[in-house]
């Protein structure tokens, strides 16, 4: 496997660009690089140490979780995982999180793609106002909206359903995702819809058959952004499951263990590992799209 690559520059970085430095050895540059590596390496290892510690602690017996700094346990207790998965019902919460995440991703991709397409390509009465309002919503803190949302979900009789969590999460203004779609659709040539119109395609057909397939790179970015956001969301699922422990997502469930009579640190670390691993794996596999996406959003 190649080294995991994280670059906003995309494939250009991969080429490594062997320039003049290769033919003519520059000792000063090499020394500087070595010093940089010597400084960066310990920092980077300390950086991810908490995750390594978590994984190490998750396979120890409960009494040995806080025992020294070593990361390799002498005995491997995988039973912590089965205990967390079965007894602590992490399996159920995992499924809840999967449902909430996939539902959220589907709805957000649909709504931001359609809105981004119209906002990016068409001038219509009210467009400027809409853009201004959406821009202002970026600054709306979740702590501010949570009480009315909690109340609204109750009024809609969606409390006690995963759908309530999904829809509340999808309804937050996803401005970055919207900007990515709008920016991408805007720069596609006008001839595309002109020739499609000649072939007799209507407005919706053009969007679904011509433009949406062209936006695959953006869709990939939005899917990853939203996957991570939904998987990680905490306040909404916490508040909406206050009276419905069965509907907890992973983040809320692990958090709730703290307050209940569930004090096995080893199992807590197993549960944390179960919750963190999927999102880290998804990120590592698809990081190029993800990083290019957020970098692109900033460049706009």
């Amino acid at each position, binding site marked *: 496997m190649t*080294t*995991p690559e*994280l*670059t*906003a520059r995309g494939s250009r*970085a991969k080429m*490594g660009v062997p320039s003049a430095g290769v033919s003519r050895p520059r000792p000063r540059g090499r020394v500087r*690089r070595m010093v*940089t590596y010597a400084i960066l390496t310990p920092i*980077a290892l300390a950086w*991810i140490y*908490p995750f390594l510690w978590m994984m190490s602690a998750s396979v120890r017996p409960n009494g040995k*979780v806080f025992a020294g*700094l070593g990361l390799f346990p002498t005995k491997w207790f995988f039973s912590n995982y089965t205990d967390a998965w079965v007894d602590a019902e992490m399996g159920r919460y995992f499924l809840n999180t999967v449902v909430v995440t996939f539902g959220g991703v589907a709805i957000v991709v649909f*709504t931001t793609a*359609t*809105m981004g397409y*119209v906002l990016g390509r068409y*001038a*219509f*009465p009210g467009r400027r106002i809409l853009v201004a309002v959406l821009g202002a*919503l*970026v*600054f*709306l*803190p979740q*702590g*501010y*909206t*949570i*009480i*009315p*949302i909690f*109340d*609204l979900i109750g009024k809609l009789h969606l409390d006690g359903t995963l759908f309530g969590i999904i*829809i509340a999460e999808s*309804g*937050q*203004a996803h401005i970055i995702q919207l900007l990515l779609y709008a920016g991408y659709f805007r720069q596609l040539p006008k001839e595309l819809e002109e020739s499609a*119109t000649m072939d007799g395609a209507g*407005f919706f057909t053009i969007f679904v058959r011509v433009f949406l397939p062209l936006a695959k790179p953006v869709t990939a970015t939005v899917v990853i952004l939203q996957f*991570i956001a939904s998987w990680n969301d*905490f*306040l909404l699922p916490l508040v909406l499951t*206050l009276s419905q422990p069965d509907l907890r997502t992973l*983040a*809320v469930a*692990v958090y709730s263990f*703290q307050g209940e009579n569930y004090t096995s640190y080893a199992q*807590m670390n197993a549960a*944390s590992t179960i*919750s*963190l691993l999927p*999102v*880290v794996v998804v*990120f590592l596999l698809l*990081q190029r799209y*993800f990083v290019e996406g957020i*970098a692109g959003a*900033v460049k706009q």
Partner: protein
Amino acid sequence: MASISAVRREPTGQEPHGSLRRRIWAARPCYLLMLPGLVLIVMFSFYPLVMSWYYAFFDWSGFEQAKHFVGWQNFRELMGDEYFWKAFGRSAWFAGVATPVELLLSLVVAIVLNDRSLRLAPLFRTLFFVPVVTTTAIVSIVMSMVFSAFNGPANEVLRAFHLTERPVGFLTDPHLVMWTAIGIFVWKWFGQPMIYWLAGLQTIPSELYEAAQVDGAGWWRRSVSITAPLLTPFAVIITLIVLVGNMQVFAFMQALTHGGPYFSTEVMELYIYRTAFGAQGQVSAQRLGYASAAGVLFGLLLIVLAVAQITAVRRLRRGPGTPAESR
């Protein structure tokens, strides 16, 4: 502007430039396509915005339907609420300390990692970015174990280097806990501005540096004369994003400390949550109207911050130093 004609031409072949009503009618497929997204935004962003204000004028527990209109009473009470002001101050302090530290550290690392001769730079970027994508609440819980006063790894390190005799109460000492929280927070989110800075740095054409180098400009000179001015527009936006993000730390703080010990880390969002939904396992304190009023005041503060920042961005963009945009 012209692309609207692709939506629908009038049967007469006339461009839809006529009356407003006609233009709206002509654009109806646009509205129809946006409808699902708009409905959701109205329901879950707009409606809450308005309703927070409405609730703020009521005495309302959330349990019973009955709400009592109390006018500005909630706001008046907040003015005299010691916990509110302390939480407010803590939020400001937290963001005020964490933001510059996060921005500066990430900028330094971004500049180091932007060096193309550094083959392993992508690997380091990945390592520094991993905490960003992980679930905040769960990372906080893991960190509460790492920084535990009872033989947590952080204390083990201190002991291994004989730096301390007694375990340090990183999260249990009221004088220390806020600093620990800021440190962990910066670690968690550091990778995000790092990527933003890298995005900014990579818009600067390398020819500029090469030309400057030929002219004999050293590293410092190039940084001051090329990097700094070209990065300024990005700096303003990045500061804004990070600052607003640093005011929204509910998941992080709630899972790390629950606002404790003795309310010493109760930031604004935790205060709102506690007043609205009660502390964990305790439901007596539910005052949704009062919490809404606190939320409204908190929201106003953020809007002031945002408006100030946007004005600054406008100013800078209008100024001469924006060749990054002309590319």
